[in-house]
């Protein structure tokens, strides 16, 4: 048996019966963002789940989604509670909003995907990158194993530095 997949010192384990998570991370490994699309109401959802939170249906297909969005909110973490993250403080967790399903099914709703804000090459130390709420970002992937990559986000105008 192969070694357990590791990311930043975390051991990751996908339950073999959790086919939705397995498929999601396989798409990530192909460096594509795919989301479940409900077979009944056609809404997208994240994170993967066996039933649609909007209509309760259990049928779905995976569809490719443009991996770009804007920072809806974020936190800059200075106190890492887990050992693998301690070398990286301060690091940023952003809540990234996609344009696909804004205000659907209710005002204020949207597909919002949390993930670290990183440099274009996946470095958690984002140094002087310029970003904030409403900044555009795009998805990048950090490969973990043949089956798993972790989705992360990088500011679109990454070449601009604060003077």
């Amino acid at each position, binding site marked *: 048996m192969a070694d357990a997949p590791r990311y*930043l010192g*975390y051991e*990751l384990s996908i339950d073999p019966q959790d086919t939705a998570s397995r498929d999601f991370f396989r798409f990530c490994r192909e460096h594509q963002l795919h989301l479940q699309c409900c077979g009944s109401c056609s809404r997208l*959802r994240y994170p993967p789940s066996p039933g649609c939170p909007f209509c309760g249906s259990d049928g779905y297909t995976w569809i490719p989604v443009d991996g770009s969005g804007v920072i809806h909110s974020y936190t800059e973490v200075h106190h890492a509670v*887990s050992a693998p*993250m301690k070398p990286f403080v301060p690091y940023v967790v952003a809540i990234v909003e996609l344009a696909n399903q804004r205000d659907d099914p209710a005002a204020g709703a949207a597909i919002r995907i*949390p993930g670290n804000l990183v440099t274009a090459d996946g470095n958690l130390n984002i140094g002087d990158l310029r970003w904030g709420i409403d900044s555009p970002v795009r998805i990048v992937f950090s490969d973990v194993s043949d089956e798993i990559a972790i989705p992360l986000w990088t500011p679109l105008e990454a070449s601009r530095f604060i003077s």
Partner: protein
Amino acid sequence: MNAGASGWVRDACAIVGIGETGYSKSSGMTTRALAGAAIRRAVADAGMRPADIDGLLSHGMNDSPVSNLVAADLGIRPNFFMDCVGGGASAEALVALAVGLIVTGQCRTVAVYRAMNGFSGTRTGGTNRNAIPVISGQDLYSRPFGWSSPAQTFAPCFMRHMHDFGTRSEQAAMVRVFQSEHAAKNPKALYRAPVTADDVLSSRMIATPLHLLDCCVETDSGTCLIITGREHAHDCRCHPVMIRSVLGRVCKPRNDLHFEWGPITESAAVYAKDRLWAQAGLGPDDVDVTAAYDAFTYTSLMLLEDYGFCAKGEGGGYVSDGRTRLGGSRPNNTSGGLLCEGYSNGMNLIIENVRQLRHDADDGCPIDSTGRRVHTHDHSAAGGCRQVQDAEVAANLAWGNPGMGSASVLVRG
């Protein structure tokens, strides 16, 4: 007895006993022993014997003793016991279950308890004894980002609140400032030294916008409430506190990723609010004292908005203009709360409001020859009075996470 919304029966049950072991960083006891100690104290407070308890309800996060063992330690055999998984917002939910057990005749008197070694044992942030070595299941979508503790996962809601409404850290800091004043009047409080807004803002950053002093303490404690039917309530040792309305747990339509549903500046309280007040037949203006769950300064602020104590977005002003301090028009978290007194997933916030409605806050006021504490209602001195004068109605606004909450309205019996 008046029927509220959807068949809810107001004041059917009362909280007649409260028990606490104290709040410390090292209890020196197992959680099982803490639970027994808290229940014994609450039973004695009610003027009962353990054998009078025929229902036991508890909650925990895999860090708490199960109630069939605790029952054995008390020498009792309950007709109903249940231990559920949950942290914040569980206490009110268990109060709601206790009411259901009592009004349907399944139990006569129920003990609701929480025992935790929240500092010396299992810490809420997921470190220490129960640290999770492998990331699996739903955690795959959060923990790989170093995004796991309550401070880390709630913080984006607060950042957006600041962005949308201009809420300032200086305003949130006043939650801590006022509660530190309250804690100075509470001999049980772990942190009794008053702090300033500058102290909060200059404490080290945990996860923006939360400084260390924006975060509650973590403590070891056992806590217990004794609940019985109204027909027995006046036979108890202390003045009864009636359960006017209780609601829990309520969640956003998608609690597993609540950030997707509605403005993230709103908590699940927006789904609980209308029902809470309709059941109570009361509104925010009728409330004399609040306990808005203060896992963080900002949770208190958001909950007070979401339950209608001020307009949405005006929480920063509400918590900083003096209304919420002792002597203000509606004091909040008069014990010092989770920020200063201790952390018991909110059980201690209910216990404090029971004391307030009994008019028996356990402060430093003089005790007369009959053993009764004579409150001065002078809130100016550090060790002064903590009792809200003529408190008749209290609201507990509880928070599990931004997507999940519970609440209750208690009235003096």
